[in-house]
């Protein structure tokens, strides 16, 4: 399960820390173990321009958040949701789903986690926070409205 890529992300997480400005923040918790993540999303029009986060969690949840930032920052919201779906399908696939490296990049390293159901939630914690934050982010037109 502990692929070298996962351990690398865990030791040197990408995009860690909470940054301003942001459009929405999500706090997620894993009730079975108490692990937490606070994650912020900044959108630029339809593009995810920044994801910043603070986590209190295991290597899997930390590395997964790190990979998440690599995979979604710079993408459109729609594209990032496709990546999220692919990641989720792989993680919940019980080792039966063949991950697509073109879509998931370093994320494919988490394929092994799928065989440890208790850890799937760890791998998804950041992604659930991302999804939630995107939903909470004011839509582009609303935002102009607020900004203006």
């Amino acid at each position, binding site marked *: 399960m502990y692929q070298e890529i996962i351990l690398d992300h865990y030791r040197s997480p990408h995009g860690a820390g909470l940054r301003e400005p942001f459009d929405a923040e999500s706090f997620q*918790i894993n*009730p*079975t173990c108490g692990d937490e993540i606070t994650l912020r999303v900044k959108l630029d029009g339809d593009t995810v321009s920044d994801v910043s986060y603070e986590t209190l969690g295991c290597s899997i949840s930390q590395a997964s958040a790190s990979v998440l930032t690599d995979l979604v920052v710079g993408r459109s919201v729609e594209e990032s949701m496709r990546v999220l779906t692919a990641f989720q399908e792989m993680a919940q696939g019980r080792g039966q789903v063949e991950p697509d490296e073109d879509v998931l990049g370093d994320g494919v390293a988490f394929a092994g986690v799928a065989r*440890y*159901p*208790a*850890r799937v939630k760890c791998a998804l914690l950041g992604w659930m926070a991302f999804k939630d934050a995107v939903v909470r982010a004011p839509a582009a037109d609303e935002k102009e409205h607020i900004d203006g």
Partner: protein
Amino acid sequence: MTALVEAPDVTAIRGDFPILSRTVRGGRPLVYLDSGATSQRPRQVLDAERSFLEQHNAAVHRGAHQLAEEATDAYESARARIAAFVGADPGEVVFVKNATEGVNLVAYAMSNAGVRTGLGPESERFALGPGDEIVITELEHHANLVPWQELCRRTGATLRWYSVTPDGRVDLDSIELSERTKLVAFAHQSNVLGTVLPVAELVRRAKAVGALTLLDACQSVPHMPVHFGNLGVDFAVFSGHKMLGPSGVGVLYGRAELLDAMPPFLTGGSMIELVRLEGSTYAPPPQRFEAGVPMTSQAVGLGAAVDYLTGIGMDVVHAQEARLTEATLAGLAGIPGVRVVGPTTMVDRGGAVAFVVEGVHAHDVGQVLDDRGVAVRVGHHCAWPLHRKFGVAATARASFHVYNTLDEVEALVEGVRAAREFFGVS
């Protein structure tokens, strides 16, 4: 109808049930006609539980080690198969210890909803108070009666009931529902009369006034194909031990949208989201309603029971029981002084046959039968108001499952004759 579905191989089926080959009262073969109280269990169910316990046992939804994962998988797989068996989604199936707990769960969640502190607006639809009504029927088992009396005691609401006609049917004109009716709770099939209730019509009437519905499916799910989704009920309950499964496990079904909005009942570990000493938040259903370490191996056993019943086919089970019921009604009709309490034809009727023998108390009928190896239940069968309605303190009741035979029905009928002779009323 009985002719359309092929008969099961009852001899082979009986071979799966070790207890059915034992003898009682000095060597008489056991004739078990008390499956309405509790059914017996096939080897397949016993083996499933045992192999779970010898190979995979661990606390579910709690551990990250391999056994804990395997145990959780077995538990959730059972939930999914049981859900499919009754036309529900897995998230709509809550494991409880028995149907009684299931009814209490809804009744307490409703009074809990009335304590608004700390609850969101979504729970408001479950709250009730003075002036509101809970409606049941006169034929309910105590499990679907006393919890509602207590809910009314706690909230000041009023309990009303549809009365029962002399031929054992629910009299739909006996009361009118109103806007104040919050919930209508009724049996799918009476555990005494055998009557199958008009679920669609009761649901229609409840919906028309915006009331929730709860179906007591204890005597239907074990005996016929049942699809809660199609029936359109909001909640339903049934027990594992009446459907060839373990004791100590039952199911509360609730429509997803309702379980989602309903406040919890039992609280503790595994049903929480976030716990601080100052206050806690709750997990989503079904976990919200499953506090503490659950009846794990029992859920696995119930999953195996559902597989076993599916293997036979619930239509086959139902047809076999119909054959037995028809033969029982015919046999008893041939004995003078025997009165069946409940419908005497097969129309909208399942396999519980309660009867009284003029001049012989039900206890004495039961005793004579027991001495011949025939096990029936005697008493009010937890439906005391219904017995009062029919002017009897106690009845004898024969009830069936797919493992029973026409020879056993014959033994029952012969035994009733013998009781009359013994007490000198023939």
